[in-house]
Each structure stands twice: as structure tokens, then as C-alpha cells.
């Protein structure tokens, strides 16, 4: 199938198989920053911006991106200069192994450009990556300055309010989300005064049980 895909400002006419993912198509064009992590849209390592919106490219078909514009980390540095978000990642040591960093840079860039940089501390806004990264505890606090690095984000962050109405879930701050909190105060419903369910035998995974309820 023939599709037209703009990648980092350059238009490509591609022939792709119907089952080819956007990640595969982008890597085929040399954008090897687009990593495959979980392959199911959960980890966020493959995040690229499709028409400005962060999307996991592993669970998206290339044909679904026909006629759209994708941005990857390869296109963020301009004229040998890193983007403000990339520079902020370096200054804040906002990574450990670096595998998911391209996806996080793109997610952060989208947040910063949408003026919602302050949301980064809420964990959920940073997308799937924070919960699944072993280094998240160390790196999450550094993402807020990263998101604020974008000039457009600074004004919105000082206003301390999200650009879009944000009802809904407030995750209980888990062990890895102890960054400075911004925005409205969160109220957590925690009837038992503790984090949630007891850990059950045979259960694996490092996720913290979370009780959620909207801000009042």
C-alpha cells in the first residue's frame, strides 16, 4: 500500500505492508530513535508526535498515519543545537539507561508545547513510561524543569493551571512520583488510610496499588 508520510518536515512516499507498524516504517526511514519496548502501547518508548500529538507508534499501523506528519527525536535538534527539552534532559540528568529517552523527550515536548508543563509531576501526564521505568524515582522530579524548558510552557506553568479541563483521576502519589507537586491540591480517597490492597502471593511486577478518585 502506498502512503504519504511527512517525517520531521520531509515528505516521503512509502510503500508499506498493511500490517507494518508506524514504528517499523519510521525506523525504515532511519529514525532509529523510535524504540520498541513493550510493543503494546504501554511503555511509551516508541512515542512520536503524529500531527503534534504524542502517539505510541508500535501499536499504530503505518497506513493509519497516511497523510500525517510525524516528529521524532531526530528532528528536534536544529542546526546542531539541541531542543530546549533535550537540553533540559541533559542538565537535569533525566534518564538512566536512555532506552526510553527519545519517547520521553517527545512526550515532554508535546506537553511543553501545549503549555501543560506543570502537569509532568502528576505522573499520568508523562504517559506510560514513568510507571514502568526502574529509574523513574530518580528521573521523574527532573521532568518538570524539562517540560518547562520550552518557552511556551513557562507562562502556562506559572499560571499553575492546565490548558484543558482536567477532571478525573488523581493517582495516589506512588513511591516514584515524589516530585514537587504543582497545580490544585489533590485529594485522595483512602478510607483505610493506607495505599491500597495488601500484596498478594504470586503476584509479580513493581507496580504500586493505586486508589483513585477525582479532585473534589
Amino acid at each position, binding site marked *: 500500500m502506498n502512503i504519504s508520510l511527512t517525517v520531521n518536515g520531509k515528505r516521503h512516499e512509502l510503500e508499506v505492508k*498493511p500490517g507494518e507498524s508506524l514504528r517499523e516504517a519510521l525506523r525504515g526511514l532511519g529514525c532509529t530513535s523510535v524504540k520498541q519496548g513493550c510493543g503494546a502501547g504501554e511503555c511509551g518508548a516508541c512515542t512520536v508526535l503524529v500531527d503534534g500529538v504524542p*502517539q505510541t507508534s508500535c501499536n499504530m499501523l503505518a497506513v493509519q498515519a497516511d497523510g500525517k506528519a510525524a516528529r521524532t527525536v531526530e528532528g528536534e535538534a536544529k542546526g546542531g543545537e539541541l531542543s530546549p527539552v533535550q537540553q533540559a534532559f541533559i542538565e537535569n540528568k533525566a534518564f538512566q539507561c536512555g532506552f526510553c529517552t527519545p519517547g520521553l523527550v517527545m512526550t515532554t515536548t508535546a506537553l511543553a508545547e501545549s503549555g501543560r508543563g506543570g502537569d509532568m509531576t502528576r505522573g*499520568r501526564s508523562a504517559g506510560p513510561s514513568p510507571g514502568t521505568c526502574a529509574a523513574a524515582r530518580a528521573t521523574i522530579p527532573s521532568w518538570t524543569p524539562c517540560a518547562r524548558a520550552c518557552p511556551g510552557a513557562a507562562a502556562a506553568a506559572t499560571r499553575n493551571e492546565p490548558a484543558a479541563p482536567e477532571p*478525573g483521576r488523581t493517582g495516589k502519589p506512588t513511591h516514584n512520583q515524589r516530585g514537587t507537586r504543582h497545580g490544585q491540591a489533590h485529594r485522595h480517597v483512602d*478510607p483505610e488510610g493506607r495505599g491500597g490492597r495488601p500484596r498478594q502471593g504470586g503476584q509479580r511486577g513493581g507496580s504500586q496499588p493505586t486508589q483513585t478518585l477525582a479532585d473534589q
Partner: protein
Amino acid sequence: MFDVHSYRKAASVGQALTLLAADPEARPMAGGTNALFKLRRGSEAFRSLVDIAGLPELPGIALDPDGGLRIGAGVTFRELAASPLVAEKARCLAEAALAMGGPQLRARATLGGNLCGGGHCAACRRCRYPRCPAAMVGADGPAPLLGLDARAKIAGRAGKRLVPLGQFWTAPSRTAVARDELLLGVVIPAASLGAPGSGYVKYAMRAAMDTATFGCAALCRLDGGRIAGLRLACVMAGPTPRRLPKAEAVAPGRLPDAATFAAVAAAAAGEASPRADWQGDVDFRLHIIRRQIEALLAAVARRAEDA
């Protein structure tokens, strides 16, 4: 590479229906987050895809002339969560929309897909059972819409019909939408809209990218300081999304206090029939149902009082 044998993009609902009728293997796909996930897990159900993303008939959140709220099946969760109209008129739905997945997923996953087969069982991450009968029960879209008494608008080749959401999920993994039909959207009646005592609670193992271990939408109406009406709609309290009529019936006429909330929650736990699975055994789930409903009721009653 996904094992997609055929991919066709429909230009209209009519064409999509024709394509679905012509190929018995064909399945509609909008955002693709669910279809591609299942393909990756080895399902053979989505090898022939009819892409219905961006069909002119499917998007849009708008008020009908009669005051009802119409939401197209192609509306993404990102749009739902950001819609001022949804936040004002159906707060529980806005909260559920934001509770679903993560930003990347919300940008592409659609309400229609969520109602028809999204929210694959969270155990899918751990088990590899491609035709899991439990699929779709942990989705975030069904509970608020069920609580809001929404009706599904379904298009077939013979015409369109409206199905109350109470009759939409006919069995685990089965909906009223036939294989050669399309869900066009949902309509929430005016009477359900704008209630201040509305909210959604989700209990999940982590704050993002997880299906609900339990999800519940509540709509509470107060009159003269007492509860005049209560609706509770849940996912993961039974094989399909459901209301809890016995628990709802406990509340009217009582004061919105802790004793009432506990009584309703106890009735809900008595009425629910959760399954045991890797997320928890039945006792744990009943405990969660009780606690979460108590907390949710306290929150929505406070909202109703403050309004």
C-alpha cells in the same frame, strides 16, 4: 509487523457496512489500539480490517435540540476528557475518560471501540489467552454511560436503531452490535445531564495504563438534604457492565451520611458477582467494591450538597 491480511479504509459508514457485509472475516477498527493489541496477542479476529477512523458520521460531541448529549463513536478519549460540554453535563464520563490508559492511548482510542471491545482484560498483559471470555469488562467507558442511561445508536444495512446500554452488553465479549453493523455513537438523555452529584471511581493496580480492577459511576440527587435518587453502574462487578438496582434502592429517603453510604456499599457487595482472577480473589474484590463505593458516594454526595 502485525498479521494483517487485508486493510481497507472506508470513506463513509455506508461503505464500511458494505465492506463488512462482503467479507465475513472483516472487523471495523477506529483507533486500532484494541485490534492491534489483540492481533499481537495472536488473535485471528482482526486480520481483515476495515478502517473507520475519521468517518464523517462518527465524530462530534454536541447537544441535541431536545437537550440530550450526542457523542460519536469516533470521539477519542482525549477529546472526551478535554470537552467542556462533557465536563459540565456528565462529569462522571469526563472522569472516566481521563482514567483510561495514558495520554498516547487516549489520543487514539475511541469511545466506540471502548464500548464494543476495548478495555481488554488487564490480565492480557500476563496471560496469553487470545479469546479470553473476560475481555472488555474492565473498560472505563461503559459504567458512566450506563449510569447516565445512554442509548447506543447502531447502524446496519437495514437502517439505524437505538439500544439502551442496559441491553448493549449481552454476554462477556458480546454486544448488541452485530458483526456487520457499526456503532455510530451514544445519546445521553437530557434528564441524566448536568446532575452535580456525579462521579467515577476506578481502582486499578497503577495510576495509568491499566484496566479497572473495579470501576463505578455514581449519580446522586439530593432533595431537602436527603438522597432523592441514586444510580450506580459498575464494571468488574459481574460478567458485563451493570447497574446495581438493589444497592440503588437502599439510598432514597436517607441522609447522605456515613451510615447510608456503608449500607449502600454493603448492598452493592451483596449484589455484585465479581470473578476471581489474577487481579484478586472474590473476597478482595468484594472488599474493594464496598470501600470504593463508600468513598465514591461520600464524594458525589458532597458534590451534590455543594452545588
